[in-house]
């Protein structure tokens, strides 16, 4: 009796320690995630309150009033998304109002005249801005990538010189990386910057395509090849980032592209012809442009989650309105099961991407400079695909009405298609998610894999024993639930599913590394599955954490959240099981070989191969 009481006391005493430990682990570095996922141990899951740290409520409150007065879509009739879409440009007065609200410098530090919002606050703002895709894209191109380079890599002088005017919106920024021959392949960049004879200028020559804000911008972040003398004395071509003002001369842009969606944003070609860029305008180091570009791209992604979630919330409202008023067969549409199902799907997706986005934002806001690029990529992939499915489902609810321009659904559908493409296509981001993770897991497992390959009897026996136990059905408990667990008991079911998935995913990753080693880079279908499982796992962790928090804080309608969280956990769990079984080498679910064969035959002939069903031989 006494001993049990002592145990209980000890547990209570230990609890803060454990929580402390968890919080440390929550620093959001993907290494942690992977250590957790792959080794099946540790605890990545944020504390219930990990989702909303101190800055978060403040952000929410401070942001709220500014939306009220803002010229923001859905709140101000001035912003007519339909008109923006039809005319293909954002009216100047709207832009002026956006500038006057300081929305062009949300993440610029306050000392440079920006709002200095944290990532969480920025995400919250994104929800409102996301109601008009063209405005969202224009703002994102300006501050998430256009001027981000200056914030991340700029020197004091550069910041002082450019940021104030950019933050006020007096100048608009654009990010110039893509070229006709170079999408994600940095090696094929053709734009070239050569040092002038007096060594005070770089002469920039080249063409960049698909530059958002290319026609509006005055300040460009341009990436070009420069000759760099290596440490060993050899001359190499390396990428360097430059801040280029339009006034430097020689900067021209083509006419705006006629796009499918986000038609209000300005996208065009930008040409640089003998543009003289002062040496002071090199961003970061000479030859260090690759890193700059990567950092900018990686940092800009997480906000898509909240932006899309904001749009989806509005969409659910509009669609529900239609479904409840439209009557067929004497019943309103909302009474039909097939319609109801669509709303559940939309709510679930919105809930998950919101949770993921704010969890990531919170991790980014954590002290230090946590690298959350994997998480941000996962948010981007999940939210862009969620947006596409949800808008399509909503349009389906409207039927024919959704197909005409009277309702905004067709515009939203067109707008949301770009989400799957820009900021790194989802295919490429999946590679990033899987490979970055596998790199880390591979390093941890190196010793073990080497021993297995060498035929160390003890390790082999251990592994075999482990597999045997697994196959006999083991209950995985990583300590998410229970007395000191972070997950609320009403979500225990989902938590167990997450734990089981995590454990078996770890096993699968180990097997994959054992099978493919570093050549796994070539196994794109395998990598895609690894990424899919990871995205689901992250989503499960995020919703469990958020729903637990809601219950514990007693937020309104938390039972609804529990429902959504359980649904998602269940769905994701089964998806993961299926995907993991596909990762087995000889599983009947794995059709990779067949798929490859089919596509090879088609691509060799470059045509659809089958004969017409009406063809005969006689």
């Amino acid at each position, binding site marked *: 009796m006494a001993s049990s009481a002592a145990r209980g006391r000890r547990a209570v005493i230990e609890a803060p320690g454990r929580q402390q430990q968890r919080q440390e682990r929550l620093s959001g570095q993907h290494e942690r995630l992977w250590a957790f996922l792959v080794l099946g141990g540790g605890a990545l899951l944020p504390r219930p309150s990990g989702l909303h740290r101190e800055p978060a409520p403040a952000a929410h409150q401070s942001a709220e009033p500014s939306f009220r007065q803002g010229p923001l879509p859905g709140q101000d009739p001035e912003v007519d998304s339909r008109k923006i879409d039809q005319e293909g440009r954002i009216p100047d007065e709207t832009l002026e109002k956006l500038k006057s609200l300081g929305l062009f410098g949300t993440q610029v530090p306050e000392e440079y005249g920006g709002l200095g919002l944290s990532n969480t606050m920025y995400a919250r703002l994104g929800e409102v801005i996301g109601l008009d895709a063209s405005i969202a894209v224009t703002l994102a191109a300006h501050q998430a990538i256009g001027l981000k380079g200056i914030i991340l890599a700029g020197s004091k002088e550069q910041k002082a010189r450019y940021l104030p005017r950019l933050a006020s919106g007096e100048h608009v920024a654009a990010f110039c*990386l893509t070229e006709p021959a170079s999408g*994600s*392949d*940095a*090696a094929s960049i053709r734009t070239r910057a050569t040092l002038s004879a007096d060594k005070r200028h770089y002469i920039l020559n080249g063409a960049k395509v698909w530059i958002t804000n290319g026609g509006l911008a005055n300040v460009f972040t341009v990436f070009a090849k420069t000759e760099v003398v290596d440490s060993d004395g050899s001359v190499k071509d*390396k*990428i360097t980032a430059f801040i280029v003002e339009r006034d430097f001369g020689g900067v021209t842009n083509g006419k705006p592209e006629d796009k499918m969606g986000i038609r209000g944003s300005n996208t065009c070609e930008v040409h640089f012809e003998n543009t003289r860029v002062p040496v002071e305008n090199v961003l970061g180091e000479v030859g260090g442009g*690759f890193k700059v*570009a*990567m950092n900018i*791209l990686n940092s800009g992604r997480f906000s898509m989650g909240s932006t899309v979630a904001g749009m989806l919330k509005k969409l659910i409202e509009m669609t529900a309105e239609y479904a409840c008023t439209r009557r067929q067969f004497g019943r309103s549409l909302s009474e039909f099961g097939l319609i109801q199902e669509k709303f559940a799907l939309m709510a679930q997706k919105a809930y998950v991407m919101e949770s993921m986005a704010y969890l990531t934002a919170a991790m980014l806001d954590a002290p230090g400079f946590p690298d959350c690029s994997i998480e941000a990529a996962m948010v981007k992939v999940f939210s862009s695909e969620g947006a596409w499915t949800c808008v399509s489902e909503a349009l389906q609810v409207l039927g024919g009405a959704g197909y005409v321009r009277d309702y905004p659904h067709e515009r939203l559908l067109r707008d949301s298609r770009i989400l799957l493409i820009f900021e*790194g296509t989802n295919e*490429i*981001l999946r*590679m*990033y998610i899987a*490979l*970055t993770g*596998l*790199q880390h897991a*591979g*390093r941890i497992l*190196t010793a073990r*894999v*080497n021993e297995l*390959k060498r035929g160390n009897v003890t390790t082999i026996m251990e592994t075999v024993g482990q597999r045997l136990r697994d196959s006999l059905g083991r209950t995985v408990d990583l300590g998410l639930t229970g007395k000191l667990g972070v997950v609320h008991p009403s979500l225990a079911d989902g938590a167990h599913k997450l734990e089981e998935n995590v454990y078996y995913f770890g096993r699968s990753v180990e097997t994959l*590394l*054992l*099978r*493919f*080693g*570093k*050549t*796994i*880079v070539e196994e794109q279908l395998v990598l895609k599955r690894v990424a899919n499982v990871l995205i689901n796992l992250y989503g499960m962790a995020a919703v469990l954490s958020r729903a637990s928090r809601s219950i514990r804080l007693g937020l309104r309608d938390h039972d609804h959240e529990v429902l959504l969280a359980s649904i998602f956990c269940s769905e994701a769990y089964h998806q993961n099981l299926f995907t993991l079984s596909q990762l087995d*080498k000889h599983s009947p679910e794995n059709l990779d070989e067949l798929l490859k064969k089919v596509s090879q035959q088609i691509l*060799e*002939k*470059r045509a659809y191969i089958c004969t017409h069903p009406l063809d*005969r*031989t*006689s």
Partner: protein
Amino acid sequence: MRQLRLREIRAFYHGHAASRPLDWNSTPGLSLSPKGVKILAASLRAAVPPQAPRGLRCSAAAHNPDSSLVPRPPEPPRRPVKALAVHEELFRPALDGTRDKANFVRAVQNFAEYNVHKRGHVDFIYLALRKMREYGVERDLSVYNLLLDVFPKEVFRPRNIFHSIFLHYPRQQECGIAVLEQMENHGVMPNNETEFLLVQIFGRKSYPMLKLVRMKLWFTRFKNINPFPVPRDLPQDPVDLASLALRHMEPDLSARVTTYQMPLPKDSPDTMDPTETHIVGIQSPEQQSALARHDPARPIFVEGPFSLWLRDKCVYYHILRADLLPPEEREVEEIPEEWNLYYPMQLDLAYGRSSWDDYKFDIDEGKNRDRSNSEHCMGRGAASMKARNSPLRGSRPISPLSLPPSNICGTSLCWLLGMTRTGPVPPLRSLVEQTCYILGVPGRRYTTQSLVGVRRISSGTLKNQEASPR
């Protein structure tokens, strides 16, 4: 059975039975007495509605004086018989000398018109079959159907089980089979009309029908059995033919066919030789880049001629190839550090693919390299070899320095010297050409694999050939 009897009876009534022996050749053992016939007739008349007499319905065989009750061995088909020239006049060339489908059809119709009783139609059909090629209708299904239509209907159908068991009207059936055989040889697929005609003429249980059923079964299965189909009508222009051959050898659709040298005009005084010389080459982008990377200090080889058969035409080609670099000199393709902006192109791990996922062949590229397993092809093409002392003949290592730079270093290194020769198989003496011949059965084509095989054998042989001038 009843039909047959009725026919016999009717023939009897019309008096044919009295004047000449009936053709009983397929119904041996059926004894016929006038009395029995009469009884049969009496019992049948009520049952069968009377039909208008259709004239003489005995077969051609019935006219033969040597016809007997014993079935004769079938005459071998398509053997020219002097007597068959009877209908030759129907196929007289038209006034303007043209021989086309219309003339052929007219000839067949004339036969039917002038010969109401279709006397000698078997001979006529054999004759027509032989004439079809002259009229260019040997691939025309409608003409075959027209020919089959010449047969009288209903006459040769077996009327009882014994007819079916024993060859009924063998000469006619043979003739019908001959028509189908010729269709088969020219790849003409019978259609429903053919089947209907055959049913009308010979009935379902007859040998022509059996042949037809088999054709319908196998033709459909074999029609597309060749994964690399050669067009039925090959281009007449040798350059076109050469490009076709090259396209067949190089599956890459990005590969470009280049004509390096056109054949000389026919009336040119230089052409001592009736065969025209031309050079056509094909090169894929990969081959171009392989050539661009090639170290000029290493030799490249022009090998050939190899032959390739396209239906009945033979094309000769040469390949340009180089040896694989020895393993120690091969450059490992380095993945640049700053390449992909979005994801790592390589993993920094110490271990590679394990053996149970390694599907590559274990090739021993040891020091004892012989050419056969260490060569890679840089281009290939069809070659015209009539110029006997062409410098490109044989497997002679050509140092890039010994060829004009334009030939080697430009984008258009000419690989393939092309000359096509049609007609009979050229004298095959060397092992190379024998191998090619075996592989190149007319109408087939080489696969890339088979070419590799040929080349292996050839490179040794051709060296020997060099020593002994042909």
